């Protein structure tokens, strides 16, 4: 409950935004728009999941946008060169995302150079590579099924089943986590239980409205959901995840406790590299082609999502659910202003203020509740 209240600031900001927008624009709350909105978020959202882990370690990764571009170019070129779709994807995930991520993590950790500078270097290098590989010209996708990854849907009936399963799993999780121990006795936290069940059902209904109301769950959304769940599980439930909090909290203490810092850090950058590459592949699929400039500036949206979501730049504090809320806020701002037809110049001004405001509401809210 405490955690929930802590994240509330941003969550409230989001609800607020949604309410305002649904008054201002009639199409905002339509299933179709919301489906689009959620799909639009995935590209940034997937990267932001990785970025959360990086920032948890008090690091930063500026190269994600360039990795998106290089991955898009690479998967497209590989398919052109005759590789099968899945092989092309695999090579790109490992060879682009994995390798560059490894370089980021290993170099910064081994030589104790701040990741800002290593990933800034890799950002420039990877962009140069995309340009060299394509000779600066965009590359069309030749494989016809490839487009489905980014644009396809899970049919409505299976989508409904997926949502139902999610609902059930959610409620089970709520039951499990609402148990508290007081003086060694099991006690059920009623407030958390009811709250959790209400949230689960609301989530389910929203899912039905959004996805079943349109064409089913978009495939990128499903992929994103799996990544988010894996991320949440990793951070909450695995030793690896807990090590990240420890390292981010105090690297020296973590080291004295026998944690292999180099390995954990490298791993986090590898994961982020792979997620960025995945995002690039999805983007190439959605665009049905790749150009060397894809992904330019994505690092800023990803970082903003993470910070709006309550992860601390100082490391050691943060959650992926927070980041997802952050990514949704940014997506909603972009979508809403576009629907409202606000002049792009003013859009920038508004977006800047909303980013600051969202974080401020969160900070002030925490301060009050402290």
């Amino acid at each position: 409950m405490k955690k929930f209240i802590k994240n509330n600031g941003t969550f409230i900001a989001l609800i607020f935004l949604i309410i305002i927008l649904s008054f201002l624009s009639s199409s905002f709350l339509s299933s179709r728009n919301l489906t689009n909105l959620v799909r639009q978020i995935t590209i940034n959202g997937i990267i932001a999941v990785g970025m959360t882990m990086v920032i948890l370690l008090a690091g930063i990764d500026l190269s994600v946008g360039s990795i998106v571009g290089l991955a898009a170019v690479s998967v497209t070129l590989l398919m052109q060169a005759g590789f099968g779709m899945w092989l092309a994807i695999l090579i790109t995930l490992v060879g682009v995302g994995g390798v560059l991520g490894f370089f980021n993590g290993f170099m910064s950790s081994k030589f104790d150079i701040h990741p800002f500078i290593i990933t800034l270097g890799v950002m420039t290098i990877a962009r140069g590579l995309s340009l060299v590989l394509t000779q600066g010209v965009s590359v069309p996708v030749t494989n016809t099924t490839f487009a489905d990854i980014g644009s396809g849907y899970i049919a409505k009936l299976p989508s409904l089943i997926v949502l139902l399963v999610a609902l059930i799993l959610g409620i089970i999780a709520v039951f499990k986590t609402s148990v508290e121990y007081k003086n060694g006795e099991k006690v059920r936290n009623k407030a958390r239980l009811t709250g959790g069940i209400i949230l689960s059902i609301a989530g389910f209904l929203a899912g039905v409205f959004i996805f079943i109301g349109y064409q089913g769950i978009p495939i990128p959304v499903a992929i994103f959901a799996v990544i988010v769940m894996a991320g949440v599980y990793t951070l909450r439930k695995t030793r690896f995840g807990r090590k990240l909090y420890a390292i981010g909290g105090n690297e020296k203490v973590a080291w004295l406790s026998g944690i292999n810092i180099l390995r954990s850090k490298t791993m986090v950058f590898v994961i982020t590299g792979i997620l960025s590459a995945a995002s690039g592949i999805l983007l190439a699929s959605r665009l049905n082609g790749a150009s060397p400039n894809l992904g330019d500036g994505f690092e800023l949206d990803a970082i903003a999502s993470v910070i709006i979501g309550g992860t601390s730049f100082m490391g050691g504090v943060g959650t992926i659910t927070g980041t997802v809320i952050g990514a949704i806020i940014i997506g909603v701002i972009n979508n809403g202003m576009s629907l409202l037809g606000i002049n792009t110049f003013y859009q920038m001004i508004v977006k800047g203020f909303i980013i600051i405001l969202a974080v401020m509401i969160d900070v002030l809210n925490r301060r009050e509740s402290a």
Partner: protein
Amino acid sequence: MSEKILEMKNIIKDFPGVRALDKVNFTLEKGEILALVGENGAGKSTLMKVLSGVWPYPSYEGDIYLRDQLVRFANTREAEEAGIGIIHQELNLLPDLSVAENIYLDRQPLGKFGGIKWRELYQQAEKVLARLNMDINPRMQLGDLTVGKQQMVEIAKALSLNTKILVFDEPTSALTESEIKELFIVINELRASGVSIIYISHKMEEIEEIADSVVVLRDGATIGDKIKISEVTLDEIIARMVGRDINDLFPKQEFKRGAKTLEVKNITVPDPFNPDKNLVDDVSFTAYKGEILGISGLMGAGRTELVNAIFGVYGKKRTGEIFLNGNQLAINSPADAIESGIALVTEDRKELGLLLDKNLIMNMTLPSLKKFSSSFTIDKNAEKETSENYVKQLNIKTPSLDVFVEKLSGGNQQKVVIGKWLITNSDVLILDEPTRGIDVGAKVEVYRLMNQLVEEGVTVIMISSELPEIMGMSDRIIVMSEGEKTAELTRQEADQETIMKYATGNKGVE
């Protein structure tokens, strides 16, 4: 019967500019409690860091044998696996994680699919904590515990490792009397179960009470052989440590009480987490020239909060009035307090007292920069001279003024903090636990310094958790409990029992 479990031979450890350990030889028997003593900077912590893999081979020279077997640890994990646990001088915990996770960091019990079994983790943690008789909920966030309890968590962490050799590097400097008692019971139990213990402390009474034998380090070398504690007096140990005799541990001097200086009325600080409670509850007192005012109480009594409040740390959240030499002061920040002539030596030197990666000069002149500058510019020569003076006066051991203070030993760091506030030439000097973690010799130096300051007309206020110190040095003693002032005693009235009575909540005044 003695069975040698550990032998360290000819250990040499160099840091840039310092040889911290110079051919140290050292043995430990099974089930022995060995006290390792020495002045600040003698090399005690360094030796233990070599032993526990913090300084991995080959960053030191010499050999370590565990049960006659040569070992060379590459990291702390390997030392742990060989059965060596250490509780470091500084807390090594993560305030944002739960108590249980701190204990089992990276050793959490896992389920089939690699997921952490939280429930089991908490149960295990509960068990270890129970061994220490600690009533701590393992689910709590560590940062919400008092420093004393955090220290116990650190001990629980070491216990959970199933160690054969356990090193305590000044474990009690943040513990209450009763916590110390609990700790000693645990240590004795551990010894009974065959664990060998190395115990580092500057508190001689503790050494006497708990240790079987003692090894003295001075300037990176052992002085004499290991001796049985029963065969030596404390004075002899101290003499070995400091290389001379110290006759008077509390060189209290008598002065005539002078004018009223600092007077505070109805100081109150609300508890931000609990609206029904005050951290400091309506405290008033007066301090005079020519005397040392002691503030006593149990850990958590609100003494630190009281002096912080006077120093402006709580800004406008503090209520009550502060007068200096009859004039009311408006103090809303430390800057205001310093400006008004009040100095505070904070209790946590690492987090609150020092810029660890800055040199001595920068640290010592920070609150009094204005003194060293005309308009905007700092006069670096004046800065150097003054710092140098104080380094000499306080007998701070350092290779030069240019080293980062993090490289100094704990005691010398403490002296730097004191020096930093002496340079401000304040009318009132408040010392919060000024001798925590510093060696006997240095303690005496601090006491002499306090005397000298009083003589020069400074009003000295000292918080201390050590009763002998409070009783030995104060002219008057305020006792606090749960944020309130429960008594004000003269030097004559104050004995151990009386102070403890008021410290545990009995009210004596008003």
